[in-house]
């Protein structure tokens, strides 16, 4: 296995570690989904996780905010270790935003209420302040005019952008993206990726599971390639796409490019 802890770019060298995974294991019954995953993600780093389906990419990032419980190894997010302690889980979840493949917006709430929910109930912000924040965020993802609609009235791309705004409303330090464009029609993928690029440029720490190679090449500081629950290769996009060292990586790239 190649070294997974070093991000090469200069801009990240002085930054502290945001997510540290040490030998993370996870079983579903007898099936081992994660086999000793070890990686460190620096503050402001953008990591794209690639791999064939069933390779454990989604499971891994779902472990990072405890939507799945890992069963071996340690995960430390921003200095807080994930364990069964509810306080730590609550703390980490309020620091880590997550965007899902199926958007998972709350269908019974308007777009505005979807975004203000967490600031009001988790951060205990006054409603007026939370609504101002929500409008700023909707502005940022480009759909302030949809604030009073319900999620069911929006297109897939718009829904995913609302989902991103909803996560940002918690002012998270890390954003996790679990195949954010996989459920979208092709013409809507770009609008979501543009928002994500903006975020990356703004210095957000991001872990993105995706199949968008163009995005990976353009935005990622580092690409992690997984297969069968293990990290196979990790490196800069340049290294990954032009000069991969592992056979399995080459095979994967030959199938998708």
């Amino acid at each position: 296995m190649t070294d997974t802890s070093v991000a090469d770019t200069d801009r990240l060298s002085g930054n502290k570690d945001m997510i540290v995974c040490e030998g993370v294991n996870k079983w579903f019954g007898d099936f081992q989904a994660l086999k000793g995953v070890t990686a460190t993600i620096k503050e402001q780093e953008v990591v794209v996780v690639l791999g064939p389906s069933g390779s454990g990419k989604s499971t891994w990032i779902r472990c990072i905010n405890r939507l799945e419980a890992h069963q071996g190894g340690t995960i430390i997010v921003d200095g807080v270790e994930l364990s069964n302690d509810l306080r730590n889980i609550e703390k980490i979840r309020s620091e880590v935003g997550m965007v899902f493949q199926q958007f998972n917006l709350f269908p019974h709430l308007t777009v505005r209420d979807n975004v203000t929910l967490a600031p009001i109930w988790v951060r205990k912000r006054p409603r007026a302040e939370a609504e101002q924040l929500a409008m700023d965020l909707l502005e940022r993802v480009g759909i302030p005019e949809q604030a009073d609609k319900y999620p069911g009235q929006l297109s897939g791309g718009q829904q995913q952008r609302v989902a991103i705004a909803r996560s940002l409303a918690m002012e998270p330090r890390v954003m996790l993206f679990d195949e954010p464009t996989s459920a979208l029609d092709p013409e809507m993928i770009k609008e979501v990726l543009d928002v994500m690029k903006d975020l990356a440029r703004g210095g957000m720490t991001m872990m993105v599971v995706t199949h968008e190679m163009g995005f990976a090449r353009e935005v990622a500081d580092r690409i992690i390639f997984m297969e069968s629950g293990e990290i196979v290769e990790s490196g800069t996009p340049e290294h990954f796409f032009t000069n991969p060292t592992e056979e399995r990586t080459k095979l994967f790239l030959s199938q998708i490019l």
Partner: protein
Amino acid sequence: MTDHITIDQTPALPPEKPRLTAGSWVRQNLFSSVRSGILTVIFGVFSFFAFKVLVNTMFENPDRDWLAVKTNLRLYAAFAYPITQFVRVWVALGLVLALLGLSLGIWRSASAVAARTIASRLIASGLTVLAGTLLVGPPVLRDEAGEPVYDETFEALRGTWRSGLEQRTGWFLLAFALVAAGVALWFGLGSRRNTLTVPTTLVVWIASGVVIGSTWVVRYGHYGLDPEGVPVGDPDSLVAMSTRMPWTVMWLLVAVAYQLGRFVSRWNSSRLLITAAWFLAPFIAFWVILRDPAIDYGHVWSTDLPMFLGFGVLGGLLLFLLADPKIGELGRFIAFLLVVVAALTFVSGFYGWFSMLQKARISFCLLALFALMANNFAGDRQTRLRFAGAWVLLIGIAHYFITLMNSPSTLELRADSFLGGFLFTMFAALFGLMFSFPLGVLLALARTSTLPIFRLLATWFIEFVRGVPFITVLFFFDIMLPLFLPAGMEAPDMAATVLGLVLFSSAYLAENVRGGLQSVRRGQYEAADAIGLTGAQRTSLIVLPQALRVSIPPLVGQAITTYKETSLFAIIGVFDFLRVANYVVPNQSTPVNFIGHKLEGLIFVSFVYWLGSITMSKYSQNLESKMGVGER
């Protein structure tokens, strides 16, 4: 050149649905083929004769005497409640109707009826009344004593059709009025009848206004007749005359409350307040109808007021501190401690370790509940003050009502023996449902909980209750409950059985809610977790609203069942609405002999039950379309 160009500012309406003419509608729907034509004729003839038999059985039969219903309207309404105290019933009813009007105004329904539909319904019902009036056979001849005259084969002798038609002027007038109103609406509106819609609430209000207004004109019944057949009391003591004023006031009250509701709906807290008011209503109604508390003011000054101040001020202070966002673990510990204290007050009371007023025990429970919730209401100073204020308000109201309930009543009447009729049915159904809904939701949540002890208890309770007939539950609560109560405390039959109703229907409601809970997708839970909501917030803000929306149809179905199940109270001796019709009136021999006249009452009672059920079912249909069930 521009003067004849008009720009239509109104938004384009969707193209009108093409309407069939009456003739082509009949052809396409009733006689589209030979087979459907035959079926139409067969079932048409069948319906005709069924209708004819029904109206003849109901109205022109020697055994029918609608005086049995007309004379006993007060028994049907409130059984033997003392006439001198009737104003209490009106106050309680007014309270419920005012709350209803407020709620309708706050949660305004967008549902509306097309003017075309109203007009055609009016014409159709007018024609039905006309047909019924014409189809009823000639009246039975009666002798001077009012007994039907029979011939030697025991066939009732009948008068002529002509005399029958003359006697039924009222019905003809009704039919004519309905048809005339319908026709006037139809042609008066012209082509606008297709586009104009009237809010359903307004239609119902106007319709009930017409019925109530008619009591000023029509004599619907009287309190009773003396043996000579003369109305008891002064000749003006007709039911319509003593109830028309209160009903008119009620009718106007609903409208005023509706407007008030519309006005206050702009404040977010109005919804919470009105919900709280609904839950206080049964206690107020109970107090208004059954109590005239003789409050012991010495006790109030020496005990009740200091206790309220103690709980209000100290509890408020404590809750203000607990709602500090920075308190963290200490807050949870204090809340847990309070739960232990609250539990201990009951345990110690049970074993008699130390005595304490029941009021204090209940207050400790409420305080523990608030302490547990404190974290969810944490925030800035103003939010915390509001939370503490809510506590003071709640504990004030609770103490006030407990004091009232504990005070002896100057009305020396036992509820069981004189309260009944529709009043009881309505209050039992309304308040039974109101309490079984939250309990059902809690049970459903417990059954789907991750904590095995909750799951186990809820499952056992639900499966046990669902496995037992309702009558068993009633008998159990009627006979067994008093044995479990501490000495000196007694629950009236009615309270006990309403408690049984609450538990019984909550088990069924729980299963309906559970169905809704299962329809909420996994992703919703994950999204709620991912944005950092606590478990309680996830349930109340994300999962339950979606689950309840999906379960509206089965929940309303269960509500209708519960409403009708109150008629089973007759079995344990409560004089409910049905029992008055089935038992009380048919056994009445003075002042007028109504022995054996059961069917009239049963028809009347069924009609009233049907009216309630159809209202609920129509309302649920509106609610479904409003909340968009089935469309995401």
